[in-house]
């Protein structure tokens, strides 16, 4: 379909071709330049061949459509699309960083690095999902890192925008995606579930933790289906340094039933950021694959499992909303804390499935050393966390539905807002006092800039307490 051989020095729609930097099976990548663009850009040119696989053509069409829709730090900035009838291409920002594949290939990474990578990739996935885009081909080759650290997801040829026509739906008899990382529902051509990306994420993390793929490299589709009934070898068995909490997260992502995985990339990100809050189940303790009898039983039940997977995958998942209660633990504010508790209880009652994040901001002083121990030698952090737990006790929320956080910051409002943004909080409940860090200014800034609804709580006769 390309009208002419592309060569160095040619100009296409104002883009000067400087150098071909990659020759792939499906596309060439050229470094290009245009006078009005002052950052490095590349041109992706598909190797379209009408005799060949039409999926290449449609895949490029999909990528053009999706790239023009998404933005932000977790995707390459899109510049222009070339018309199919003339010369199809996509011009985008050049990402000056390695792919995850280049960084680790089939090697296992240190645990800290896995968690760090996991957080960045989950943040990128959450951002993409927020923009209504499902990647459907998440794998190490499609994850890059900016020099500033953010993960960038590339190659949207199999992706789907929830609000736009799915150009790949029902188009092909074969499932689309990379089998090594593909969720079971994708084998049955379900293209509507964000949790398919969570599964692929789990496979990527499994590979980083163990140096192996969870289900090997199956050569034939029949073998690919084994993941419906066969569980992967637990990462800790292959690499004992893997902490139980990481195994818990990885195996939960790799659950065959979408309903059993994390329900959103935001949830996953939240757990990766707060490993101490992850609820450990039998998954964390597993030391071997299920035995022959169990596996055989699952194999025999596979047709029913597949039906359950499909039913689960075509139902929209429910993301548990997060309610953030912001605290002032100073003495004399008992009435305010009681009012806050009531407001939190009412928000929880009105938001089915919600989880509560309790945050205490500890303003750090500008001068002097911050002491972690008080005059009596008690650890302040431990004491404050205990205070938070005692406060929340009447709510009787099970573990997993409530979390406790101490944030230290000189800028209280900024710390609250940053927590709300990075954890995609749905509702902030904050107490207001007339003095101290929660005086008007902080509450006003939080209310003005919050990415969600804010409930400001006051104690009935708050003045008499805070003035004493």
């Amino acid at each position, binding site marked *: 379909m390309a009208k002419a051989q592309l060569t160095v020095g040619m100009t296409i729609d104002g883009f000067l071709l400087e150098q071909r930097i990659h020759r792939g099976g499906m596309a060439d990548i050229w470094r290009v330049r245009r006078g009005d663009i002052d950052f490095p850009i590349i041109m992706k040119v598909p190797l379209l061949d009408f005799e060949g696989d*039409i999926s290449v053509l*449609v895949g490029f*069409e999909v990528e*053009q*459509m999706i790239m*023009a829709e998404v933005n932000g730090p977790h995707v390459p900035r899109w510049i222009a699309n070339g*018309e*199919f*009838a003339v010369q199809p291409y996509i011009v985008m920002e050049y990402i000056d960083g390695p792919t995850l594949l280049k960084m680790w290939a089939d090697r296992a990474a240190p645990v800290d690095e896995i968690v760090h990578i996991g957080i960045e990739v989950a943040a990128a996935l959450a951002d993409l999902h927020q923009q209504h885009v499902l990647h459907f081909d998440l794998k190490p080759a499609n994850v890059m890192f900016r020099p500033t650290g953010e993960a960038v997801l590339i190659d949207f040829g199999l992706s789907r925008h*929830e*609000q*736009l*026509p*799915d*150009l790949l*739906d*029902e*188009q092909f008899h074969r499932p689309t995606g990379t089998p090594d990382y593909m969720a079971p529902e994708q084998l049955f051509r379900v293209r509507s579930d964000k949790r398919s990306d969570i599964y692929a994420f789990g496979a990527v993390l499994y590979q980083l933790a163990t140096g192996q793929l969870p289900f090997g490299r199956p050569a034939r589709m029949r073998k690919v289906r084994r993941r419906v009934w066969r569980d992967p070898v637990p990462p800790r068995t292959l690499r004992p340094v893997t902490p139980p909490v990481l195994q818990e997260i990885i195996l939960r992502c790799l659950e065959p039933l979408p309903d059993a995985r994390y329900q959103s990339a935001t949830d996953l990100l939240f757990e990766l950021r707060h490993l101490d809050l992850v609820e450990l189940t039998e998954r964390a303790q597993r030391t071997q694959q299920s035995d022959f009898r169990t596996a055989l039983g699952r194999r025999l039940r596979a047709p029913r499992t597949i039906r359950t997977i499909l039913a689960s995958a075509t139902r929209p998942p429910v993301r548990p909303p997060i309610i953030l209660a912001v605290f002032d633990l100073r003495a004399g504010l008992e009435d305010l804390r009681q009012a806050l508790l009531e407001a939190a209880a009412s928000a929880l009652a009105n938001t089915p499935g919600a989880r509560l994040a309790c945050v205490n901001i500890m303003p750090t002083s500008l001068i002097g050393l911050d002491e972690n121990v008080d005059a009596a030698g008690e650890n302040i952090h431990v004491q404050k966390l205990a205070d938070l737990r005692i406060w929340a006790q009447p709510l009787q929320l099970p573990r997993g539905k409530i979390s406790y956080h101490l944030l230290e910051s000189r800028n209280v409002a900024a710390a609250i807002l940053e927590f709300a943004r990075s954890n995609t909080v749905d509702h902030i409940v904050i107490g207001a006092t007339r003095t101290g860090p929660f005086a008007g200014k902080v509450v006003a800034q939080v209310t003005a800039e919050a990415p969600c609804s804010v409930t400001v709580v006051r104690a009935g006769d708050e003045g008499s307490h805070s003035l004493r």
Partner: protein
Amino acid sequence: MLIAFLADIHANREAMSACLADAESQDVDRYVFLGDLVGYGADPAWVVDRVAAMVAAGAVVVRGNHDAAIGDPREGMVAEAHTAINWTRSRLTNAQKGFLAGLPLAVEEGDRLFVHASACAPQTWIYLFNSREAEQSLMATNQRLTFCGHTHVPALFHTTAMTPPQRHVPIAAKPTPLLAQRRWLAVLGSVGQPRDNNPAACYGLFDDVRSTLTYVRVPYDADLAARKIRAAGLPEILAARLTLGI
């Protein structure tokens, strides 16, 4: 250029006014009416006069089956539609009837076709609900883009030379790129009697520079339109369905 598509107004003055006001606020350059100006609703004369005035100012209009039934009682219809058509006929002047009788079945413009129902034998008013019906329509025209109405249910079909049409349910207010390498068939939903469980009036905005189509939903005073239908003595179902979008 921004083109507004209004299909199946069905004599609903309140819905049409709301859509036109919305379109004006978006700086629409051109209006295309995709048929069925009358039938069902209580304001046929007002709607015909308004469309006629806009056509005189450059708008495009095609004929729908209800418009055709005014001049030709042989058009087959369900009972309540038939009742409404007889009532409508009594409300229109000869000039208004003449305007409806003179409407073209289809209009072609650039790479676009405007038609009320399927492009395949348009005078037989075939509904475009599924991919097979869309394929027949797409095969009956060489135009790349078809804009039509008739079903009262918004839908967007797309196809390539090698793949059969796929049906997409458009999301309101989301501009959808009508990609140049595909052929598209847009069913615009209904201004005056939506039937997709959303009572808001539906019309389309096509940006011919960016080649994007946006389905716009406009809430309007459906209660008033329903009261007028009841006051006119028309069948109750025609009033009740407006507030439910069925």
